[in-house]
């Protein structure tokens, strides 16, 4: 919510003093919680602080969420919202498998290249559809993406002929599954390896940071989130900026879909449900506010890591399955409530 217009009628009102931005405060708190959590876990369990757990398990699982969270950060910094990422990822995954099936007879490198490009195109297309609806038609982002969440899921059902599980052709399976299972040696030995999803995530993250911080488009994303009207009056094509953030988000869904399809080698219409909430939670917990204009990718990274570490720790600390959702929900609530308390913008507001 933008600040209420306050004419500075009182000289030197105390609120004029400059405090560190709220996002920095929140992200700092989250980072602190994260570090404490890691330290305690490292001391109390033998399983947490192992390369196997941290890299193969925790980070590799976080990677595909993180890729979509990068796209979501663009959308949310610009003041938008995307509930359809789960469905978009599903469609992308089905597209990937269908193209691979269709290219069964071709050489593997060619089939996979075409499949990846087609998947990317599908992701961008679906994202752009969201973007067009939000910024050119003017439908509220929540309503738009709630609707497209259903529509895209329906498209996936049709593409899989009513929900059949599609499989990647045998001839391509081994190569294609490298997108998830592939590993790269670190320090020149097989003792420490990084997985392909982590590397892809790092790539997406770096490119995203670059775009958001060092390009004109990135500046506009923040400006649109900060005050869309003022940005428009400054002569900027705000509709295009907003629509583009959704297209970027769609593209990241496509990238995540390729990785995850590589894991299971299947495409299913029922997959990735509830993904959107995990992704949005990561962005919010990091400190990018609903309404946009602030926050950013490093904040999202911190939020993502906190949620992933908790996810990883729940079984290790013996939290029963039935209690886990409560813990997850509470953590999101507590972090955001802390943010509200720090800002002091609770119900009372300022005079």
């Amino acid at each position, binding site marked *: 919510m*933008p*600040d*209420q*217009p*306050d*004419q*500075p*009628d*009182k*000289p*030197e*009102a*105390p609120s*004029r*003093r*400059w405090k560190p*931005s709220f996002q920095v405060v929140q992200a700092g708190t989250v980072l602190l919680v994260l570090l404490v959590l890691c330290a305690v876990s490292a001391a109390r369990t033998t399983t947490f602080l192992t390369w196997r757990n941290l890299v193969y398990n925790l980070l590799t699982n976080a990677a595909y969420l993180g890729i979509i969270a990068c796209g979501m950060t663009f959308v949310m910094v610009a003041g938008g919202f995307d509930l359809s990422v789960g469905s978009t990822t599903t469609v992308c995954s089905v597209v990937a498998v269908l193209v691979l099936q269709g290219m069964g007879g071709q050489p593997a490198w060619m089939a996979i290249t075409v499949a990846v490009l087609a998947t990317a195109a599908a992701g961008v297309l679906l994202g752009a559809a969201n973007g067009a609806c939000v910024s050119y038609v003017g439908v509220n982002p929540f309503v738009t993406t709630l609707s497209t969440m259903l529509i895209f899921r329906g498209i996936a059902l049709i593409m899989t002929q009513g929900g059949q599980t599609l499989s990647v052709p045998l001839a391509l399976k081994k190569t294609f599954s490298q997108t998830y299972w592939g590993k790269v040696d670190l320090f020149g030995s097989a003792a420490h390896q990084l997985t392909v999803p982590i590397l892809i995530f790092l790539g997406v993250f770096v490119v995203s940071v670059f775009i958001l*911080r*060092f*390009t*004109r*488009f*990135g*500046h*506009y994303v*923040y*400006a649109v*989130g*900060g*005050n869309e*009207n*003022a*940005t*428009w*009056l*400054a*002569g*900027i*094509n705000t509709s295009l900026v907003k629509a583009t953030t959704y297209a970027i988000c769609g593209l990241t869904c496509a990238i995540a879909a390729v990785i995850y399809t590589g894991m299971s080698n299947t495409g299913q219409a029922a997959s990735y449900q509830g993904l959107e909430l995990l992704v949005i939670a990561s962005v919010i917990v990091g400190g990018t506010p609903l309404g946009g*204009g*602030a926050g950013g990718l490093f904040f999202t990274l911190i939020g993502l890591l906190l949620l992933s570490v908790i996810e990883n720790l729940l079984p290790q600390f013996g939290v029963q399955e039935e209690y886990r959702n409560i813990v997850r929900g509470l953590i999101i609530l507590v972090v955001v409530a802390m943010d509200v308390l720090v800002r002091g913008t609770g119900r009372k507001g300022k*005079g």
Partner: protein
Amino acid sequence: MASAPTPVLRMQGIVKRFAGVRALDGVDFDVRAGEVHALIGENGAGKSTLMNVLAGRFPDYEGRIHLFGQEARLASPRQALALGVGVIYQELSVLPNLTVAENILLGHEPPGRVPGTLDRRTLVRQAQDVLDALGFRLPVGEPVGRLSHARQCLVEIAHAIRKNVRLLVFDEPTASLAGDDVERLFAVIRDLRARGIGIAYISHRLAELPQIADRVTVLRDGKAVGTRDIADVKVAELSHMMLGRRLTEMFPEKRNQPAEPILRVEGLSRPGVFEDISFTLRRGEILGIAGLVGSGRTEIARAIFGADRAAGRCALEGRPLARRSPRRCTARGIGMIQENRTLDGNVTGLSVERNIGIGVLDRLTAFGGVLPPRRVRRNAQRMIERMDVRPRDPARPIQTLSGGNQQKAILGRWLCRDPKVLILDEPTQGIDVGTKAQIYRLIMDLASDGRGIILISSEFFELVNLADRILVVRDGRLVGEMPGPGTEVDAVFAACVRKGA
């Protein structure tokens, strides 16, 4: 009006400090029953602070307040209301989803037979009684959010009157009203006055005072500098009282030279808002547009800039401006400072450097859309230097600056583009006097460089001191033109309010 005026309110020696600074420095102010007493002053003079003391929002004031003959200590808004003080804020506090009746009786709903329910029929009847007594014609069953701002204001007044309020404080009520609504509100205020209600009327618009006020008190730097009967005072004198002797020193010498036409506006119309507006702006000219609030002057400017759709043609340097939008106009070299800085100017949350740079990023960009941070910073530093924005910290979020410095930063944003035509809509609103002088000098510099300037202002003394020509807008029509230099403020004012034959 009333033959034996009894003071309903007497404030004596009111002092209010903010972090050691005296926002109010021993102010005396009184309101009689059946009187409209206007309180005017520059932004920062302390008007709103005084009003907030009266509303009970600043319990830590010093000084004495007598209400209806008895000494009172205003410790909370609730208490002020219980004592009979009602405040109509600029931002109304009606609840848009509730009906007119529900809003009027909010907090006093008649209980129904079953405990916890309310008696809707009685509620509607009581609300109707209140409205009838006031002579307001409002649909009691309609959600307030569907009414115009002016009529919402009436609901708020009815709500206050319903609570037996005998002193009403209006905080710049005309700031968001247009045209006839202002007239209607004034009629309501006059009617309330005739009922013996005391009215404190806060404004920074001198022009409307003769229509509504009986007496006027001028605040400057937290002090009351004088109280006058409105019948005995000229608008020009009030300007001088508001600004002190600084007024003459504030304006630069006129040294711009109007040359060949640069912007032509022909037959600009927007049904119900303005009609058939045509004029020509010259290079190096400062063209003033005078008009009361709601006359359509802001809408005309927005239409030229393409922020609102309108029929009619505009041409810049002889080439038509087709399908105007802020983007196209900006690209062609037109800039516009919006009236409402918070809503339409600042990109809240972003740093000063980004706010300055936002309009010229296309010129700062290296290949492939990459934007080197150093260029953004250097561009901003140049403008911060030129515009004297303080503090000189390009990384600070813009909303942490004072109003004047925010405005200088936004002016800097447009100057980066080196516009040929700059439209300034109330550029000095809510700005301290020192910054005003800087902005006047800047306007003169820009015009002297051969740019065309359109200056819209409610402060007519700005127009007569800066503009080469003044166009008068009334009820959405151009009704006159007068030269800037040598024209009296009161003459401009008279042209703005004179009703057509």
